[in-house]
């Protein structure tokens, strides 16, 4: 059964306008820093998305900033009520993605809006597109900030969609990090480079919200099938012009080309999702462009990474946390929920559990640190069921009071990390090395019941009758809420 969801960005924008989650910017804005600065401030203040109608030097284009940087906009993207709570959105995501994968449907190119304009040869210049200079001092203009890259495994033919940042080098060249532990990294460096074969790619700029959500989910299946699960029906794809790949037919802009083996050029610095410019400028993976296709009046989506909260942090936290939820549940761990805090730049995850046996927190940490999700985070907080995992105050209270400063903390050395970790030494960044830590905020099961501290709160210290009476009279006492 198909869910109700925006089929493309235009439908999404209309829904955001109707819900008051968007501001139309009629004044001309410059792609050179001004647009980035606006989007950054919008993220930091958690304001409605800016819809830029006029871009300096690029009269044929519009742009849309911070498309999914709030849970309200995520809910709208999923076709839900914008007032949905985080647990409601999470439950809907888990429900939709637990069933059978839904393979995509390839449609005729005449029905695909992304084929309304086709540029080949010299016309397919990256400077034809309004790639923003996102932050002052970045290594270049980042065309791809809210996008995904499509690639295909040459042996299994499995499709991968992933968000790999891409900096414009010249009119035909982009460059960006493809980390060796990523799906595309394993494919390109493991299967194409040894044969000195270029790898066809298609960068999808400004896809529909659910395809974008699927592309940043660390799912164990091809993301085009995962997108179908989120939609409840096959995602509509169309064949590329220059290679044997397919792309979402309703996307705004497609860049096609090849990833070149055995040639690397310098990329970065870039303002990254951690809220710092951390990873070094160094030789990285090179993309050469063969074709650009786009819709009429294309709308370029722009994300601006930095201090919380932008959509990279929010969606990655959301999907990483829920993939951990599914993993732990599949192993029979009695969890009550998993929530990764976007404010932690998806570095810290809170796992709620019924402490049914001793050292359950260690088991949880070992499972998720040992999964393919682990390079992207390093802090696990395990709390019992009396802590609200979605309430930061509650989590901080549990961490500060229930986690023993020596016995409650376990350090895991020699783990996989990323070059983007601000805490890592320059040498660790170069080799993608990291460490992990577990904060066990459950009380040991062998403590006598009479010695267990009892939480002192309105909800725990008073009989239900008193609580009901106080709540019923709250306004009578002179309080608004």
């Amino acid at each position, binding site marked *: 059964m198909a869910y109700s969801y925006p089929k493309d960005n235009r439908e999404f924008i209309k829904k955001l306008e109707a819900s008051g989650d968007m501001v139309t910017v009629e004044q001309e804005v410059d792609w050179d820093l001004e647009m980035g600065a606006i989007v950054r401030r919008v993220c930091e203040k958690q304001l409605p998305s800016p819809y830029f109608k006029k871009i300096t030097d690029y009269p044929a284009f519009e742009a849309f900033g911070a498309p999914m940087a709030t849970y309200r906009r995520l809910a709208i993207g999923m076709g839900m009520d914008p007032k949905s709570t985080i647990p409601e959105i999470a439950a809907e995501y888990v429900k939709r993605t637990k069933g059978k994968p839904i393979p995509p449907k390839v449609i005729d190119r005449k029905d695909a809006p992304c084929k309304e304009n086709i540029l080949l040869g010299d016309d397919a210049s990256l400077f034809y597109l309004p790639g923003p200079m996102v932050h002052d001092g970045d290594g270049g203009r980042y065309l791809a900030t809210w996008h995904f890259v499509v690639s295909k495994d040459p042996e299994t033919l499995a499709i991968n969609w992933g968000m790999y940042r891409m900096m414009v080098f010249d009119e035909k*060249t982009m460059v960006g990090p493809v980390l060796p532990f990523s799906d595309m990294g394993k494919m390109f460096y493991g299967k194409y480079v040894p044969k000195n074969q270029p790898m066809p790619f298609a960068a999808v700029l400004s896809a529909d919200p659910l395809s974008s959500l699927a592309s940043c989910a660390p799912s164990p299946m091809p993301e085009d099938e995962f997108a179908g699960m989120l939609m409840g029906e096959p995602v509509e794809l169309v064949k590329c012009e220059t290679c044997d790949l397919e792309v979402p037919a309703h996307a705004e802009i497609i860049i096609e080309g090849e990833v070149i083996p055995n040639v690397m050029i310098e990329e970065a610095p870039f303002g990254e999702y951690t809220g710092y410019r951390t990873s070094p400028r160094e030789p990285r993976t090179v993309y050469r462009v063969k074709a650009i296709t786009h819709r009429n009046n294309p709308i370029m989506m722009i994300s601006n990474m930095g201090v919380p909260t932008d959509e990279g942090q929010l969606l990655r936290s959301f999907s990483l946390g829920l993939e951990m939820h599914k993993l732990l549940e599949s192993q029979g761990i009695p969890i009550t929920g998993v929530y990764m805090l976007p404010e932690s730049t998806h570095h810290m995850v809170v796992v709620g559990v019924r402490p049914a046996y001793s050292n359950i927190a260690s088991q949880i940490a070992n499972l998720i640190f040992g999964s393919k999700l682990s390079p992207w985070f390093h802090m696990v907080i395990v709390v019992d069921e009396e802590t609200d995992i979605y309430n930061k105050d509650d989590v901080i209270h549990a961490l500060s009071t229930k986690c023993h400063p020596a016995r409650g903390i376990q350090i895991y050395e020699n783990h996989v990390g990323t070059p983007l970790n601000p805490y890592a030494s320059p040498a660790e960044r170069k080799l993608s090395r990291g460490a992990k830590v577990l904060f066990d905020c459950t009380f040991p099961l062998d403590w006598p019941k009479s010695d267990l501290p009892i939480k002192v709160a309105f909800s725990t210290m008073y009989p239900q009758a008193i609580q009901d009476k106080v709540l019923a009279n709250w306004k009578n006492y002179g309080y608004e809420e």
Partner: protein
Amino acid sequence: MARKEFDTFLLQDPATFIEDQELELIVRDLTPEDRRTKYRSFFAKAKVSKSSSSYPDLLWVRLGRGQLLEEPWSIEILKEVNKFPE
């Protein structure tokens, strides 16, 4: 005629940079005729001086995390170098 302006990222201590020798570096064009191509990068064979007046064009220098040096250097671009297979 106004001097052209470029910038580059220097991944070493500026104090150890050796001037006035032919070298290869990546530069970005900050003043192209068509503004849409601003920040286009290319490999160049060039000579560089820490003095802003030694060579025809200005070269702004950024360090590895994008930090801009206060004063520009100067550069003479001898030729653009293609690094990509045809």
